[in-house]
């Protein structure tokens, strides 16, 4: 008597990447490189702002990377990658024409519907601008759907500023307020100096109709959230995108777990109201 094969689950491994082609690549700073990727057959990625992809460099592994373009740009998506290890190092050696593997988009992303009609205050620190940029671009592309837009951006020093063309564009736009700061200015720097929280004094928001979108290195959250709270923005409208180690992106590998949530699935975007409850949130 042989065991009857029971139904096999639908194929479709969670590990199967699709192949994408890099159509543009350039260094933004000494450590960050920009990529524009087109999927096979030119399919749109169909992401929500704030989602990420798992990039595969075969032989080195996978790395979760935020999508830094807006879904309104359908023919391709963009990433900004810092060189820190195996996968990212090999990515840095890739130029236009190279192919890489991709899974996703993953994560919850920002609820752009809920944010409609509200003012938005963006607070981006360092590489946090990469995920933030996708949301900013989306809001600016759908400008009429949202209220006042304020962008605060901080970097350690002027040479680490990302997306300089976008920065000048935002600066020039009449329909959004833009403030920038560096911790350690060089001689040519004329703008604000100091950590990002020093920018808050330039900002006036109406807390009753504002969403704060905060993305940056772990240390930044605590202080930026405090500022937002002191402005009177309710906890449920302070949104953060968290970074955790991730090996699968789909809520199985356990690495990104905080309490009973998986950052890759229920996040990476959380409101402060949610984070507060998770002890290791920030």
């Amino acid at each position, binding site marked *: 008597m042989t065991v009857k094969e029971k139904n096999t689950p639908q194929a479709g491994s969670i590990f199967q990447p699709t192949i994408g082609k890099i159509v543009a690549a350039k260094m933004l700073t000494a450590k960050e490189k920009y990529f524009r990727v087109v999927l096979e057959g030119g399919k749109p990625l169909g992401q929500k702002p704030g989602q990420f992809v798992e990039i595969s460099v075969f*032989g*080195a592994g996978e790395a979760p990377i935020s999508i830094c373009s807006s879904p309104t740009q359908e023919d391709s998506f963009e990433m900004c990658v810092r060189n820190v*290890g*195996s996968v990212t*190092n*090999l990515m840095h*050696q890739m130029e236009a024409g190279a192919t890489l593997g991709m899974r996703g988009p993953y994560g919850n992303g920002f609820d752009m519907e809920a944010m409609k009609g509200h003012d938005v205050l963006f607070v981006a620190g360092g590489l946090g601008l990469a995920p933030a940029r996708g949301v900013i671009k989306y809001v600016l592309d759908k400008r009429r759907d949202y209220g006042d837009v304020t962008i605060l951006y901080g970097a350690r020093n002027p040479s680490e500023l990302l997306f300089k063309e976008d920065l000048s564009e935002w600066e020039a736009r009449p329909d959004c307020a833009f403030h920038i700061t560096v911790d350690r200015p060089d001689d040519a720097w004329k703008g604000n100096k100091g950590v990002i929280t020093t920018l808050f004094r330039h900002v006036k928001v109406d807390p009753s109709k504002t969403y704060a979108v905060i993305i940056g290195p772990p240390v930044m959250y605590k202080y930026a959230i405090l500022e937002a709270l002191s402005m009177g923005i309710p906890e449920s409208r302070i949104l953060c995108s968290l970074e955790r180690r991730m090996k699968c992106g789909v809520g199985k590998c356990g690495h990104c777990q905080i309490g009973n949530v998986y950052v890759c699935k229920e996040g990476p975007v959380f409101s402060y109201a949610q984070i507060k409850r998770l002890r290791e949130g920030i």
Partner: protein
Amino acid sequence: MKPKVAFFSFTSCEGCQLMFLNLEDELLNLLGAVEIVKFREAMKEVTSDEYDVAFIEGSITTHSDIERIKSIREKTKILVAFGACATIGGINAIKNFQPLEDVRKYVYGERWDFYDTVPTMQVDQVVKVDAAIHGCPVSKKEMLEVITSLLLGKTPNIPDYPVCVECKLAENVCVFDKGMMCLGPVTRAGCGALCPSYGNKCIGCRGLITDPNTNAQKDLLEEKGLSVAEVLKEFRMFDGLSEVSK
């Protein structure tokens, strides 16, 4: 251009070089991917005096070793410490715990001063090391991981967790359960827990993990009946140069 690879041997048993030759299934592929320009134990010809990668086996134990390793460092782009002798001093560091003069006299008698020796050093105590392949001897798998990584230009995946992890994955009977001692809980994995898999204790040949709880490990060994001196001796078999052996 194929990368130029050279092998050098210092104070060692040359077992790690033999492990390279023991890559019987992979050797021909590797010889196709790299140009071996110097390998004294296996070849007479020396085709280049500049290397992309130099594999260094053995510890530094004499004044002339120090000069030689420095000159190799100048000639190579990447220097790989190859095996426990090179990465952590290994067996050779046992002699450091006795006065060197006594050691020389015990072994060479009246002619002791004829033999140059300095306290055993691991390679990175003398020159910069770019990558390390652990183990006494190195494991084939890790050797391949490092070599293929160097060829692909990526950082090799070297575990930084204890041997116990691999030992449990192999479903071995823990040697503590058999009344023996084991250094697995503080020793870097990557060997597949080979020694416990063959019924023996982990002797710590791959060196310590980055953040070992050595106090807990010492307590554990003492609780199982070793004296403080014997606990130290366990660590000093291979890890004589590390903090925990002091």
